[in-house]
């Protein structure tokens, strides 16, 4: 089998068995990047020299027995809102164009300790605000299945990189579907862990109470292995949790016998494209045939999910992004008169339209006189949404949903109508509001040949349940070939 087609776990295994060298693997991916980047544009920063130096260092470490993790030597990409010391971290924003952090995100530090080899930093929607990776200040990433389409977002670069064989696995972040939606559009697998499972230290904040870093991989096992590596209780993040059950790779092989699956009826109703609906229903049928008890049920609260999410995320973002002011680092306007003009110009010129839209929305919902009517109310809705899920998980082990109502839209379509774009987050954002884990697995292609994503949603801390279910489904579905593999056939 070709090196690029090996999953991360398989590649790691061959590296440990000395069948493949770490540098050899890194070179293969760099080579693929050269081939695919002109079409896909998944990366913002790649330092070839650094990649090879790191590969040699990891090889030495493996030889000396310092790196023993299953991921040692595996080449990975990292979304550009995750800080790595000495590596430019832009959040795909002009305002951070030349920002080089002096510290490293705990999640990446954990991955580095496992011996992963960093290939580069991937494109994204500016500050993770967007669903298409079109709001990036540094160009649009294309969907490797068809470059006329978006890869989704905001972790579009990371998902496209894996789909195009330009990275063996990647890290993304998910505030309102930003891993699960692009994973669906790109036909890769991505998991958003339970809030608090992966440290947020070093992740440039968008909506702090919703943000989670998570892995994107070729299959469920890869995602489990990456999640196992990056999850940790971090004293540098007050919201990170001490979990004893982060051995996510354990017991993955399973079946679906007697698994109780709930499908929120609202998620198959209005707004869903017939092709997505058909693909999801087919997957449900497969699971049913394999012994799962699938039931459609009313989840409730669905109409309130999008407004609550955009209020809470925008409110937090408006405050989180205040630090980008041209004073300490990042972009400062070339000409200005006095302090306030410097702030105004630097931020007006440094931020893109979508970011400004959310800053304004967030500032508005927090202003005095509106706080109670919007922000507080949204928090109450958030609590009610959590309760709706609590009720559902009394009856079901796992919930199933599409990862988006449609397959990937054409480039240029979405930003014309931001409100419509926001509505596309309907199946993913509730999971963030409730703090739940969710994983997207590809379940088919539409007529245009674009992938459809199937989302497994679990109760808090039930990653293992959804990983097992998704893994079992993968087996029933059969081998899934990524975009670049199909191209080559």
């Amino acid at each position: 089998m070709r090196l690029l087609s090996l999953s991360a776990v398989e590649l790691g295994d061959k590296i440990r068995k000395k069948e493949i060298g770490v540098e050899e693997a890194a070179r293969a991916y760099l080579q693929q990047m050269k081939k695919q980047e002109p079409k896909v544009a998944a990366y913002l920063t790649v330092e070839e020299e650094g990649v090879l130096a790191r590969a040699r260092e990891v090889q030495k470490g493996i030889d000396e027995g310092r790196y023993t993790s299953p991921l040692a030597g595996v080449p990975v990409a990292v979304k550009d809102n995750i800080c790595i010391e000495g590596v430019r971290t832009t959040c795909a924003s002009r305002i951070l164009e030349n920002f080089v952090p002096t510290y490293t995100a705990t999640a990446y530090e954990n991955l580095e300790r496992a011996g992963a080899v960093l290939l580069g930093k991937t494109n994204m929607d500016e500050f993770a605000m967007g669903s298409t990776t079109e709001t990036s200040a540094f160009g649009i990433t294309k969907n490797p299945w068809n470059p006329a389409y978006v890869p989704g977002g905001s972790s579009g670069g990371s998902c496209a990189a894996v789909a195009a064989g330009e990275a063996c696995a990647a890290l993304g972040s998910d505030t309102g579907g930003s891993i699960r939606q692009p994973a669906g559009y790109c036909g890769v697998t991505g998991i958003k862990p339970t809030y608090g499972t992966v440290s947020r230290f070093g992740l440039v904040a968008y909506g702090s109470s919703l943000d989670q870093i998570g892995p994107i991989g070729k299959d469920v096992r890869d995602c489990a292995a990456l999640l196992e590596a990056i999850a940790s209780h971090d004293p540098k993040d007050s919201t990170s949790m001490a979990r004893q059950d982060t051995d996510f790779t354990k017991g993955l092989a399973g079946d679906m016998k007697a698994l109780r699956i709930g499908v929120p009826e609202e998620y198959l109703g209005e707004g869903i494209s017939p092709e997505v609906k058909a693909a999801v229903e087919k997957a449900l049928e497969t699971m049913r045939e394999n012994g799962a008890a699938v039931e459609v049920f009313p989840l409730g609260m669905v109409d309130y999910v999008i407004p609550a999410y955009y209020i809470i995320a925008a409110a937090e973002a408006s405050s989180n992004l205040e630090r980008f002011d041209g004073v300490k680092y990042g972009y400062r306007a070339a000409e200005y008169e006095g302090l306030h003009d410097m702030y105004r110009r630097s931020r007006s010129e440094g931020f893109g339209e979508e970011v400004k839209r959310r800053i304004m929305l967030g500032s508005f919902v927090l202003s005095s006189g509106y706080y109670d009517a919007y922000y507080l109310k949204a928090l109450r809705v958030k609590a009610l949404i959590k309760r709706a899920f609590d009720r559902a998980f009394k009856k079901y082990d796992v919930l199933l949903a599409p990862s988006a109502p449609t397959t990937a839209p054409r480039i240029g379509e979405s930003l014309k109508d931001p409100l419509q774009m926001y509505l596309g987050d309907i199946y993913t954002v509730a999971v963030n509001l409730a703090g739940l884990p969710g994983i997207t697995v590809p379940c088919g292609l539409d007529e245009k040949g674009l992938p459809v994503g199937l989302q497994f949603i679990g109760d808090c801390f039930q990653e293992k349940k959804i990983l097992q279910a998704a893994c079992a489904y993968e087996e029933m579905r059969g081998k899934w070939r990524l975009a670049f593999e199909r191209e080559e056939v």
Partner: protein
Amino acid sequence: MKKCGENGGLLLSARRCNGMKQYETVIGLEVHVELATKTKIFCGCSTKFGARPNTQTCPICTGMPGALPILNKRVVELALAVGLAANCQINRYCKFDRKNYFYPDNPQNYQISQLYLPICHDGWLEIETEAGKKKIGIHEIHMEEDAGKLVHDEWEDCSLVDYNRSGVPLIEIVSEPDMRNAEEVIAYLEKLRHIIQYLGASDCKLQEGSMRADVNLSVREMGSSSFGTRTEMKNLNSFKAIARAIAGERERQIELLEEGRAVIQETRRWDDNKETSRAMRSKEDAKDYRYFPDPDLLPVSISEKWLEEIRAAQPELREARALRYQRAYGLSAYDADVITESRHMAELFEETAALCKSPKKAANWIMGETFRLIKERNVEPEKVFFTPGHLASLILEVEKGSISNQTAKEVFEKVFDEDVEPLAYIQAHGLQTVEDADLLGEVLDKVIAANEKAVEEFRSGKEKVLGFLVGQVMKEMRGKANAGKVGELLREKLRQ
């Protein structure tokens, strides 16, 4: 000023036109206190004062992207200690909120503070003024982070920012509008300062900014039960400045009202050199802070056990200590009050007293020589560093008669300045009293011979003259004699 009646006779009663109206001042204070923790409130950087700019900073206290705050537990403990001492209710579940405003000294452009659920609320302190005792209500105490410092370089025409102070823990103590004059305000601040200093929670220095008081002031006609419009006065760096600002602002507001104009609710900056204030620009005083709960920090829940531990560890505060000194050591109320003015002085006194077993003498040395030197050397009582054991051994030496009182005072200066070990110093400099009877005898003879007239007078019954003669001997001996013994010997010799 408008004359009475100009404003429309209907509004002003004749009685009021007969003379100036009587006004009452209503004052509430917002006091910021820097807590004496070793590290900052949300990161591990040092809080030490006076380091080179930006040397005590990290990604957290400079607002770098992706950095997250971690609450320093000690800050909560000190805030609780102050709250308990100020008779507050404790919010056992409290939260941090973000206060959003743009200013370069604030690296995140939001300050982490507490608005919705502050750690302490509804307390009081009792003050004592010439008018008697009075309770001043405390509305709340909350925890927050300090900002950095802007330095305006007029030479280079630029502003620089030092983030060493960014993230230094503060508590803000908000009083009720219960004070009516500067005397009460000063008494309240003194009381607060003593409590906080005794708790070891802060050194509370107004000049250095570790204690900062903003004065909220309004005036109203005497007897009125509603409040007038208040202003907030900032930049008050000493008790004297506070007293002057109160007088100035009261006058300004009364003048406005007398002219029939309205007081505007605003923040004003006091200029103590000019003794006037000016309204701060509205931009410096933007009011919509868009507060919301900080999602990076978990709510703080304070267990009964934790609270109990803090309660149990509360040190004895000033009043209790002063009372104990009166009861246990027989000090006068005045002495006890003076000694307990500073916790450090009180501790010096107490340890000295315990070691020399003579609280009265220890008190005299603290009240006398120690305070004299503090004044002379212009040092703060907190900075006095001699070992109480050294003062105690000096006291014991004097008691034994092995050094004179005069010598003891000289040695004490050395103890005060350099903390010398007094016994070694006395030995090394030969300051002990001379026990040599022959030498003493010679000096006595010499003095008797040189003061025939005085000797005559003594012999004729003028006992008082003995003192003069003893003095002469002591002078000859350069103080190194036991004056009591000299007296005895002289008496003996003169009887012969």
